[in-house]
């Protein structure tokens, strides 16, 4: 009885997993179908596979090439993540290993900025960009994405650095090690997995962002999500192409997310859940 019930619940868990994954699996399958096979009712599960959807997406059919958008997204996400790390690491150090007075207040100030919705500052930023000629400039997005992710990074990093045992640092200091050596030899090895996870999560949020990119970029600096918005209105038979596009553009996020899986909760809950 007990064994049966346990087996049944395991089966239920599998079923739930499959139901949640089904749309993604279907998207992947459809992306390898021809446009005609993709648009049948009832669906053609066993239609022959082709790479036409991907060829279409990458511009073989004369449509706009997605490469500039993918390059822009890469620049915006990678550079802003590097900036976030450069700003957040020292800050987290001053909030954990050698804390300033009232460090919890500072920590909560960072968190409170995350609760300010993006639309709150959108218009002044737009007007500022327009008047300074920064519209349609990828570097403006780099600055904005840095500010979007900095609070999350400070919180995560603070909780990771706090895991470094003070006794070890103290011992190294007594042995005459100087600060750079302590940071490189003692702190870094313990905190590195956490720092990597922080970077991956910041990358995901920047890669996904649509509102700022949509408002502040045009033809030159458009990012991958903005490129995807061209598929909002139907363009005849285009399901395979949409699926290929969605999948290709989601791949970096899926990869980063699975790489950071273990620390994902801690990051998303701003370090409140370990």
């Amino acid at each position, binding site marked *: 009885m007990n064994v049966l019930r*346990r087996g049944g*619940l*395991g089966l239920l*868990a*599998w079923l*739930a*997993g499959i139901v*949640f*994954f089904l749309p*993604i699996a279907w998207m992947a399958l459809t992306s390898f179908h021809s446009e005609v096979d993709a*648009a049948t*009712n*009832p669906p053609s599960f066993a239609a022959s596979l082709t790479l036409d959807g991907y060829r279409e997406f990458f511009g073989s059919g004369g449509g706009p090439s997605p490469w500039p958008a993918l390059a822009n997204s890469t620049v915006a996400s990678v550079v802003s993540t590097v900036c976030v790390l450069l*700003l957040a690491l*020292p*800050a987290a150090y*001053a909030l954990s*290993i*050698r*804390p300033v007075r009232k*460090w*919890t207040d500072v920590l*909560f*100030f*960072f*968190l409170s*900025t*995350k609760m300010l*919705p993006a*639309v*709150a500052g959108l218009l*002044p930023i*737009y*007007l500022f960009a327009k008047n300074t000629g920064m519209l349609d400039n990828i570097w403006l997005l780099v*600055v904005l994405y*840095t*500010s979007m992710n*900095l*609070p999350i990074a400070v919180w995560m990093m603070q909780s990771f650095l706090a*895991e470094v045992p003070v006794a070890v640092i*103290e011992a190294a200091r007594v042995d005459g090690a100087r600060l750079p050596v302590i940071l490189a030899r003692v702190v870094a090895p313990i905190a590195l997995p956490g720092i990597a996870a922080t970077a991956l999560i910041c990358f995901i949020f920047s890669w*996904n962002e*649509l509102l700022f990119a949509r*408002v502040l970029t045009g033809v030159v600096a458009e990012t991958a999500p903005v490129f*995807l918005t061209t598929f*909002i209105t139907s363009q005849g038979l285009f399901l395979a192409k*949409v699926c290929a*596009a*969605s*999948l290709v*553009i*989601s791949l970096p*996020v*899926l990869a980063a997310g*699975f790489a950071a*899986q273990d620390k994902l*909760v801690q990051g*998303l*809950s701003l370090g*409140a859940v370990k």
Partner: protein
Amino acid sequence: MTATTTAPLTAGTTRSARGPSPRLRAWATRAPLLPALIFMIAVTQLPFVATLVISFFDWNALYPKARHFTGIDNYRQVLTDADLRHSVWTTVLLTVAVVLASLVLGLLLALLLDRRFRGRGIVRTLLIAPFLVVPVAAALLWKHVLYNPEYGLFNGLLHYVGGPQPDWVSNTPLLAVEASLVWQWTPFMMLILLAGLQSRDQQQIEAARVDGAGDWQIFVHLTLPHLRRYLELGALLGSIYIVQNFDAVFTITSGGLGTANLPYTVYQSFYQAHENGLASAAGVLVVIGSIVIATFALRVVSSLFREEVSRA
């Protein structure tokens, strides 16, 4: 965790160190913090102050010369405008429905995943995947591939059982947006609640079992009270993100069919209608709504945080 462990270090070094004055040393401690702090204030706080100022002006970008101070007129207009009031209501409905549904589903999934079974790691990975699809891509997937009335997967599957062939987005636009968001946010809730379940005191549960408590009693009297703050945290963080949702509304319905929420309305009123003053007032209202949620969120985060600090 940090407070107790790092305090002795600071005290120790201040006492043993010689040389620079205490004031200089205090600034040396603060220095690593300043770049991040100044950057955040400049990029997030200043624009909001500007929004606040603009919200008191009648300012259409197409007629810049006619710009003038109007006091709280914009707010009055936002709060009395039927469309805008409707978008406030839509925002509330969307947020509450998505948060509650994904929280309940997330709890069920977390309970299923909290037990050992064959392939648990794979199931966990399958369940996280929806959260890791780019939001616009996810919305496109639901709009075109699942909801399409002629060749979408839903109607395709209904076809097999001889069911009806509804036009999902036109018939139930808000529900269509909500379903896609629930699909994306359930994994998030599941992860937080799973972490909560795994931090339960196993000894206490064993003791209760020895005393003859059944599964249901343990769930109601031990698990749920323990999960309470994780549920709150999930609900509040989820609310903060979903109140701001733009991608799904923009993609699936383009704000049509009565699904325009506040972020979409703010976007539309300045990007398409060029009403800077009105957009700012609506933006300020979104902020006030968020502050109400955020105050509770901060309280929950800080209580969990203090528990972590004291546990170490």
